[in-house]
């Protein structure tokens, strides 16, 4: 009797009470959020899953006095049940980022359906996205996420972060960068990185600062150092040594020569000189980033939190400004590419 009861309970009572058929799910790839005249305006980018679709996605609009109210409003479109588990990105208008950024934390963190690892972007051109036409099988969310990940990993001069990271930074009183996104000639354009302090948009930061933030947060695989000669730095490591009165940054890695503009051949002595100049250049990049942070009064590289982790009883809000900074760079040139000397040097020797 008990076995029959259990069998019936498993069959009849569990699981599928709130099921939705697969073809009824509207898979949301991205959300675009604007804030105008005390009202949230959201546009959900929904994947177009029909076989003969000419575009990969379409947009559904909703409005409301609260963010969740605006998301709920999208259901007014007939036969619409948004499914957020595959969401890739959220794009915020500048107005939204300036006025209501903090409102995204609670509602997105509380909601079990919404994943927490989507990427955040800022835009000054909402309209451009609403007319964006993605190819069949693709969506704005997919393309923007993939482009941003590649750009951060392989170039580094652009920075944005995932929602989870932004929320963690907010809770830890850490400043963070979010990247801009725009549409230009049906192409996604990722260009600027915006600084957020206490989740308030502060300013646009130079590319070099975004690069340093990526290096500091270990988001980047390799990056270029430009000057008279150009190098690609790879297999690098950055370690912070936190002392009571100073922070020591130890950077080590390998450099690949990409472009040499000197007119002489590259001898062993030349390589030593080039390595020294490269190390000095990287050291300067770090120190300039720290100076920039101090100048605008925002701890972009997160030194204060690191100091708190080591010396929790000594830390104050502006401790990072009063610390000394020492940067030690040990980068060796490991590869010279296909040619032995510089082209200018080979020509001169002839």
């Amino acid at each position, binding site marked *: 009797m008990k076995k029959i009861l259990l069998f019936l*309970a498993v069959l009849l*009572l*569990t699981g599928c*009470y*709130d099921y939705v058929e697969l073809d009824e799910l509207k898979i949301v790839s991205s959300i675009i959020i604007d804030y105008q005249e005390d009202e949230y305006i959201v546009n959900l980018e929904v994947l177009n899953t029909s076989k003969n679709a000419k575009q990969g996605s379409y947009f559904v609009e909703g409005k409301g006095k609260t963010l969740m109210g605006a998301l709920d409003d999208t259901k007014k479109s007939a036969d619409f049940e948004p499914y957020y588990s595959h969401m890739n990105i959220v794009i915020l208008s500048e107005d939204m980022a300036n006025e209501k950024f903090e409102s995204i934390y609670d509602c997105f*963190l509380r909601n*079990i359906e919404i994943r927490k690892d989507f990427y955040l972007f800022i835009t000054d051109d909402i309209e451009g996205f609403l007319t964006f036409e993605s190819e069949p099988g693709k969506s704005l969310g997919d393309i923007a996420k993939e482009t941003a990940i590649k750009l951060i990993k392989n170039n580094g001069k652009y920075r944005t972060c995932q929602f989870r990271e932004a929320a963690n930074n907010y809770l830890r009183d850490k400043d963070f960068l979010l990247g801009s996104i725009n549409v230009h000639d049906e192409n996604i354009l990722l260009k600027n990185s915006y600084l957020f302090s206490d989740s308030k948009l502060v300013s646009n930061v130079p590319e070099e600062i975004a690069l340093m933030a990526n290096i500091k947060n270990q988001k980047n695989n390799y990056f270029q150092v430009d000057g008279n000669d150009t190098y690609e730095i790879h297999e690098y490591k950055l370690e912070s040594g936190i002392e009571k009165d100073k922070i020591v940054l130890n950077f080590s890695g390998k450099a690949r020569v990409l472009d040499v503009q000197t007119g002489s051949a590259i001898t062993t002595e030349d390589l030593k000189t080039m390595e020294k100049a490269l190390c000095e250049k990287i050291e300067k990049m770090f120190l300039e980033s720290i100076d920039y942070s101090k100048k605008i009064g925002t701890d972009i590289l997160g030194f204060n939190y690191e100091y708190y982790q080591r010396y929790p009883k000594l830390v104050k809000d502006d401790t990072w400004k009063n610390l000394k900074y020492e940067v030690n760079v040990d980068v060796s040139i490991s590869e010279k590419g296909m040619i032995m000397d510089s082209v200018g040097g080979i020509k001169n020797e002839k």
Partner: protein
Amino acid sequence: MKNKQGFFNSRSLFWGLGIGLIVDKVGTSFWISMILGLLMGVITLVFIRSKNKSKIVEVLSGFFFTTISLAILTFMSSTLYLNETPDLILVAVAVLGCAIISSIRSNSWKSLLGILFSVSIFLFLTSQGLLLKEIVPNNILPLFNTKLSSLLYGALVFYLYSVTPLIALNDIEDKKTLIINYISGTLSIILISLLSILVLGVNEVVMYRYPEYGLLKRIKVFEFFSNVDNVFVMIFIFDLLITGASGLKNMNLKSKLSWVTVSILLVFLITYLIEHAILMTAVYYYLPLFLLALLILTLIPKNR
């Protein structure tokens, strides 16, 4: 085969309750509290006198732990998976399942626990292994940054959450088994807490109701199997179901009438609990007081 019931009992109250509460009070120094709590637990188990539980305390503690563990289980299912399913149905199924498990005879019960113990350990080790690459070592810093009073409170919470169900629901004559079960159960909780902090950071652990689930969400196998967390959630379910069933066993219900009465009472009480967020929040914050009272009742010698 040794009885593994104590292993499940000593862990069950940490899911969705204990870990979050301790980390909230103690921060990154949580590990000191947990180790202190473990030592206090071992000392209690070494010095505890056997046969000092009265019948009324056994019934009371059995009912209490069945209620709490099934409330955690159904509340978790409702929050994470079946948020549209009526709570009454979830609770009824959980109580029915528990009742059936608890009616298993002694030898089969030991075998079942042995199998679940092996599966649980396998899932635990696999999940821990898969999460190693997600670790951020600095998340554990600062190592020592809390007041002594907070540390001691954290230790007391750990002690009460692990020792009380163990003593109340298990045969305390076989001390060796009890202590082995206790140490293995609590060490696994310490490791899970440590990994939660190392992977998620203190802020996320404190913020989420189920940081352990958030931790499992981060598991990826070769970058393409990313929804394996549901398999590992079985660890929580085993602990909570076994503790619920142990509670019913502890009540030693004989007649059909008592079974039906207790089951109906449990269904309505748990449904009422999980339908009122204010009550579940009260459970979260005031459970240590209830456990302390229950522990004192359990430790008072029967003949006094």
